[in-house]
């Protein structure tokens, strides 16, 4: 049987990798992909906690899985909006590299 800790460590590692992607990448597309990784890390933690801790504490009856459904919903909406903004950015500036989008920088 896999302990809960292993799933939590998997989630932590995935979150760290996604965080590195957000910090280190230049292309806005890759940054959005890294954000998706971080959201998935959170989902793994939520679902692991829901499965192992069912019936203990205030959150019972697999509420973690339902919160994970909402996270997936918001992530889907976020991807659609993010790529619409990236598309508009590309049309206006001809690049999707975030360090070249410096119109508001002074």
């Amino acid at each position, binding site marked *: 049987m896999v302990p809960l800790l292993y799933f939590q460590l998997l989630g932590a590692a995935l979150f760290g990798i996604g965080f590195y992607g957000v910090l280190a990448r230049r292309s806005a597309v*890759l940054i959005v992909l890294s954000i998706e990784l971080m959201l998935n890390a959170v989902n793994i933690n939520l679902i692991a906690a829901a499965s192992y801790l069912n019936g203990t504490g205030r959150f019972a009856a697999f509420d973690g899985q339902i919160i994970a459904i909402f996270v997936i919903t918001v*992530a889907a909406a976020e991807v659609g909006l993010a*790529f619409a903004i990236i598309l508009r950015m590309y049309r206006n500036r001809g690049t999707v590299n975030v360090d070249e989008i410096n119109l508001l920088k002074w």
Partner: protein
Amino acid sequence: MALALFVIVAIFTLGGAVGVVATRNVVHAALFLLLSLLGAAGAYLLLFAEFLALVQVLIYGGAVTIVVLFAVMLTRSSEYPRITDNKQWPLGLITATALAVVLGAAFWLAPDVVAEPQAPVFTELGASLFTKWALPFEIASLVLLVALIGAIIIARTQNVAQGETSTEGEG
């Protein structure tokens, strides 16, 4: 047995994630993301969350990856393979590693849970979604609607030169 499956799933998930942040090709990054998301779906299966695994494959594996590939195609990001990382990547690596270590240590030091994973009764999950979580559910549907309309308005082509906002006849 379960541990071996977990190791395989973890290798898929983390390997795909490292591929996303390490590859120089944007299309490869999108495909690595698909690998990582399918690995996460496997982790959900190991946790007896079949519904979530299904949703993960449908929404992430299907919709999100397609949207990403469309965005890559429309922005020609793949034509910019030169430098994909910015100058602060060593600092980012240090920060991300520190964050992962802190998170891992927090989980490590938490009191041990000896419970076994349980599978939810599917009807209970649905009933909870439509009773206890009914308001968040409705708000989520509104969020999706707003995001949909917003994405269309942001991304559509306008005749900017003439200052026209009407798009009739363009569709």
